[in-house]
């Protein structure tokens, strides 16, 4: 279910690669096609040797015939998806001064995760805290809280917190009780009220890190594009944003990037007075906001180029 046919096994092969570390000999990347391999114990048959980089960084030679692609298995995908990436703590920073409701993040998210049109993982709010204060656009992904209510209340462990900070959902475990949806104070979670009717690429298997396919009667939400992160790429919304609103990075590396500029997370927080939404709820989100100071666009411009159905969504927006 990857985006294109040519790198079908890439995401999982990295995982299998990690799994095969014990056997000792690793993966190869040939002309853009990633193939994971294991060495059969016997000697060469064709005599053609291929150089491979082992997991401990040594160059080794392996017979070509001994290289076999490892089948993608759902159980392996799922067990890897539960652990998360070691030594990482992902964090997102959203610069409210640059957002103008371009909605490219929403589109990229829906396309990337094959979501139905009315199924938004990324949402854009037009907020105004009080009638005396300013309006501002407020993109809202999942906050991937460090004390996630949704994970606490899940009765079957279908949603879980990983070591790298990401909160994922196993759509093959979820029973659809919707307790997590009432538990989440940020309305992040969406329910698959009907069959999503997505066309899946042939031979694709369910991967919780991509969240595809969504399953009828289960809960879905933003998953920080965990599949992209495993490939060392930015989440889809971050790369899609034309304004560079969204920064993504690693708290342990103290670095975040929006694709064009890379900055120190701690410095950004300090200089721009970063904050987290509703800190008082104590859920410890992994998403930080920068106040809409010295804006790049007037807030009204966010409604100019959108079609009527989108405008209609904000007609009740106002001070709370």
């Amino acid at each position, binding site marked *: 279910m990857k985006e294109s046919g040519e790198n079908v096994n890439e995401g999982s092969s990295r995982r299998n690669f990690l799994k095969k570390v014990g056997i000792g000999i690793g993966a190869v990347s040939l002309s853009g096609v990633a193939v994971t391999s294991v060495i059969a114990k016997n000697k060469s048959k064709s005599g053609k040797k291929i150089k491979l980089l082992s997991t401990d960084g040594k160059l080794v030679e392996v017979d070509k015939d001994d290289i076999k692609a490892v089948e993608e298995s759902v159980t392996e995908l799922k067990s890897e998806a539960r652990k998360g990436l070691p030594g990482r703590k992902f964090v997102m920073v959203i610069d409210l001064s640059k957002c103008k409701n371009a909605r490219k993040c929403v589109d990229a998210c829906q396309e990337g995760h094959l979501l139905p049109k*009315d199924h*938004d993982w990324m*949402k*854009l*709010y*037009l*907020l105004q805290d009080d009638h005396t204060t300013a309006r501002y656009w407020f993109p*809202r992904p999942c906050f991937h809280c460090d004390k996630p*209510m949704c994970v*606490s*209340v*899940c*009765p*079957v*462990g*279908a949603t879980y917190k990983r070591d790298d900070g990401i909160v994922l959902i196993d759509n093959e*475990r*979820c*029973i*659809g*009780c*919707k*307790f997590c*949806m*009432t*538990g989440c*104070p*940020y*309305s992040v*979670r*969406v*329910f*698959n*009220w*009907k*069959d999503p009717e997505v066309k899946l690429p042939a031979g694709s298997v369910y991967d919780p890190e991509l969240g595809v396919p969504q*399953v*009828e*009667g*289960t*809960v879905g939400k933003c998953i920080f594009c965990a599949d992209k992160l495993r490939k060392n790429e930015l989440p889809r919304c971050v790369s899609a944003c034309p304004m560079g609103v969204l920064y993504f990075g690693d708290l342990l590396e103290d670095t975040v990037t929006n694709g064009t500029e890379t900055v120190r997370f701690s410095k950004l927080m300090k200089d721009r007075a970063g904050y987290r939404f*509703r800190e008082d*709820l104590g*859920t410890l989100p992994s998403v930080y906001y920068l106040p809409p100071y010295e804006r790049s666009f007037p807030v009204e411009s966010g409604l100019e180029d959108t079609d009527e159905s989108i405008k*209609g*969504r*904000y007609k*009740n*927006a106002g001070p*709370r």
Partner: protein
Amino acid sequence: MLTEKQLLQDLTPEIEKTGIRWYLTFVIFFLIFCVGIYALIQQIIKGHIVTGMRDNVVWGLYIVNFIFFMGLSYAGALLSGVLHLFHTGWRKPVIRLAELLTVISLVIGPFFIFFCIGRLDRLPFLIIYPRIQSPITWDVIAISTDLVGCFLFLYLSLIEDFAILRDYTDLQVKPWKKKVYKFLALGYSGNEKEKKILSNARNVMAAMIIAIAIIVYSVLAWIFGVTLQPGWHSTIFGPYFVIAAVFSGTGLLIILMYIYRKVYHLEEYITKRHFVNLGVLLTIIAAFYGYFTFSDYLTKWYGSIKMDSMLIDKLFHDYFSLFIFANYIGILLPCIIIAFPRFRTIPSITIAAVIAVTALWVNRYIIVIPTLETPFLPIQDTRPDWIRYSPTWIEWSLTLAGISVYGMLFMLVSKIAPIISISEMKEEDKTEILK
């Protein structure tokens, strides 16, 4: 002393023969039930899109019905347990109804959870992959414990009756039914030793189901209480739910007494005394329940916390009539009717009970839905028709189906067991019980 024969005739009106009226009522209930099954099939085929629930209001009528029926059950358990333990003399003709009410509500309630969850096929996951941190897991443990406890309590009270029915040679029933009685009576012969054991067991179970009922309904309240949602996140919810449950259960017991008294001509057994006693109990509980309701909403209204204010605002605008009915009329009117001796007639007490039970259902509705319509982030950027909740015919038909199954189960039980405990009535002088 009433003769056993007369007691059997009066209290087992459905066991020997089945009247046309029984069949007719049963068929009506069954038809409603079939509509519910059709609705359920629709929901399973097309998905939950056929309900009125959407991403904000994720719990609708089903959860309202669930907490309502569970409440009835816990109330039945509390009432029968307390009445039994305190050896309240007048309890004997009505305690069987309270026990039946407990078990039947407890059987119906969880079905509404089954309707609400998205993947019915994954229900076993609750047992296969349980997480003890989740209040739903607490609930699974609590409800199954309660189910076993209440079934046992009901069964213990039925053993003596089954023995009487087994030993009664003139009973005109099919041989299989006799065999069933023989089996269910467990060879009970009624000697002193057996009587003592049975009575001890019933006392222990009565005490246990009181405790279980309180714990179980508190756990259910905590499903709401532990969340951060405005209106739900309340420390008062545990005791508040327990009181509300007893309120509705007492009301339903009065309604059932009225129906049974009319249908089976039990005027001699269920007297005005029962209605007045339970009516007074209803009033006392209404006072507590009103007090809890008031203090819960007062603290939310008086403070300036934005989410609470928005919720109160919603309740007093969008839900104004429902709020007034549930929390003013539904509490005050039953109190007024029963507080003045002049209004205390059997029909008026029954009307008070009907108001109380309906109001409590509405109260459940305005606890569940308005909170979900008041999330921390405003409801925006979503399809406009997804914003307000209104239940669809699917949800209403399944609700009605639940009520019709409720009726059918009571009717089926009356085919096999006495509607008033014969053994209890036999023991005591009738005048003593019915004075």
